[in-house]
């Protein structure tokens, strides 16, 4: 029973992360190679906000025993701030790989800082003893996991709903156009980096929320939980599930989680690098290659057709008879 709950819960958390990464990569083509770091930042912040003062022999910042929803919000804000900083660093450069290298650099710098600075998050030991958000000390792990599904599922639902809204809006269209050809978008008067910045920080915000739920579940967090390799699983999840489709990330997260299908796997790998048993990771690699080759849009491809075809615009009879479109005749915008 616990196994299923655990699977569901961690699947949901990974799905929240995937939703964030999908916004960045699927919609806008921004490859976030260190997305797990933003999750980690969220986890740490949520942890230190809800924890009490550090006990003897350990130390961490914060420790104000705030309610869990403050921790949750703080996690999102902290992660998106980090995303903002990373993005702003790379803004002057035109090459897309610069954002990638800046992201990686930020990841390593944060990892180093979290490990080396004892006062920040207790260095290599990390934070622990994060209070349960429901039930206090009388509750069993099973019951807690089940209860935790509710807020986690709700957050996931909200993230998917927001993704859907963005997709079906001019903002989403702009993002996807930038993904296809940034130069042309500029030629039509849009400042490209504005929308990129917005979606990047939003994606990081979601990763932060996922981190908060992680730490509420595991009640601890340390640098060994966010080794660089973890980010790649989420990327694989988004790509296999379907870039650009808001359900794709969710599906991908569950597929990748199922594919890994063991407790030690999708839990952040505390201590030594993951025990990749019997070729499961290899399977993901093969799956990724197959998807790339034969179904590059992912298992759930982008589905704007559904939206546009369901409500086709039929021209009123009067317009059909006119030879010239009204768009060209009027320079003043009276058509609005």
């Amino acid at each position, binding site marked *: 029973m616990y196994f299923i709950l655990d699977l569901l819960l961690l699947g949901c958390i990974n799905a929240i992360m995937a939703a964030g990464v999908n916004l960045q990569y699927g919609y806008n*083509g921004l*490859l976030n190679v260190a997305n797990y770091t933003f999750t980690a930042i969220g986890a740490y912040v949520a942890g230190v906000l809800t924890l009490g003062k550090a006990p003897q022999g350990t130390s961490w910042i914060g420790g104000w025993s705030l309610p869990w929803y403050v921790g949750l919000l703080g996690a999102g804000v902290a992660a998106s701030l980090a995303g903002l900083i990373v993005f702003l*660093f790379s803004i*002057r*450069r*035109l*090459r897309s*790989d*610069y954002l990638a*290298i*800046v992201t*990686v*650099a930020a990841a*390593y*710098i944060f990892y*180093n*800082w979290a*490990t*080396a600075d004892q006062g920040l998050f207790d260095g290599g030991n990390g934070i622990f003893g994060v209070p349960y958000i429901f039930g206090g000390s009388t509750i069993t792990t099973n019951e807690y996991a089940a209860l935790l599904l509710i807020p986690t599922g709700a957050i996931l639902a909200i993230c998917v709903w927001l993704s859907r809204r963005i997709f079906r809006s001019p903002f989403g269209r702009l993002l996807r156009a930038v993904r296809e050809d940034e130069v042309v978008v500029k030629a039509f008067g849009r400042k490209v980096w504005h929308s990129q910045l917005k979606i990047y920080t939003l994606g990081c915000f979601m990763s932060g929320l996922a981190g908060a739920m992680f730490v509420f579940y595991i009640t601890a967090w340390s640098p060994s939980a966010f080794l*660089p*390799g973890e980010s*790649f699983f989420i*990327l*694989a999840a988004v*790509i296999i599930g379907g870039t650009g489709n808001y359900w794709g990330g969710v599906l991908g997260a569950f597929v990748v989680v199922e594919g890994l299908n063991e407790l030690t796997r999708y839990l952040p790998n505390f201590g*030594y*690098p*993951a*025990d*990749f048993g*019997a*070729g*499961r*990771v*290899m399977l*993901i*690699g*093969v799956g*990724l*290659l197959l998807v*790339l*080759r034969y179904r*590059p849009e992912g298992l759930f491809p982008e589905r704007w057709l559904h939206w546009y075809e369901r409500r086709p615009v039929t021209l009123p009879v009067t317009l059909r008879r006119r030879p010239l479109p009204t768009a060209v005749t009027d320079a003043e915008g009276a058509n609005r």
Partner: protein
Amino acid sequence: MHTFFLGIGFGLVTSAILALAAVAVSLQLSVTNFINFAYGDYLTLAAYLAWSFTRAGIPLWLAIVFSGVLTGAIAVIIHILVFRRFMRRSVRPVTLLIAGLGVSFIVQDAMVIIWGTEPQRFTTTLGSARQVGPFLLTPGDMIIILTGAILLLGLHMLLAYTKFGKALRATSNNLDLAQASGINVERVTSITWFLVGVLTVAPAVALVLESGTLDPTTGFDELFVIFGAVILGGVGRPYGAMLGALVVGLSTEVAGMYLNAGYKSSIAFALVIILLMFRPSGLLSAAGKTS
């Protein structure tokens, strides 16, 4: 001053290792035009192969040769099975990047299956550190620096003076033009991969000898510093990569002597980013690349 030179000494070793790997990556990048995320795992693979050969009783130098050839062959096979299929269909560069990711998953897991996740010890007894001028180096260090220099020199001569070298430079500069001039671009690419694989053994073994342990993630851990050096040197410019590696290696080690050593990789990355802000196309300007 003593600390400074100690740092330079370490830096030279680090730079040598880094330079070899960075040059290999840069070579591959210049010809195939994409960044191979699986390269770290090629490093690890080369190290494991060498280690396995030594365990079978083969002397180290021979094990390195065998491992080099084998790694080169594997690199070519992977290219044919995976990367070439994508390249033939002219996909977006991001797709190749992700393909590299997929390969990384496969190779890394394969190594886990074959060799397990327990770290292995890989040492040689070559004597202890000795004072060489202002530097403090072990014989192992000196061999690494020497080997690195020789290999890089050999590579330089290959690129500059041989027919293949010219073909490679032409391909990396302008693929279409090279093809139109009658160069068999596919063959050049395959041979480049082989070369990259062979070249990878040196930094791999050096890396492992330096740290003494080997596990499936050893190479991957160095991956991004290598990319940093490559990008710093100017994308697709092997000589730039050497320079980038030198800059990164030296400054990190020297800085690491004065600051908290745990921050070394942060220093490396911070350095790369700051330098890139001032010279976006890398230390050697990218003029001349026409593709």
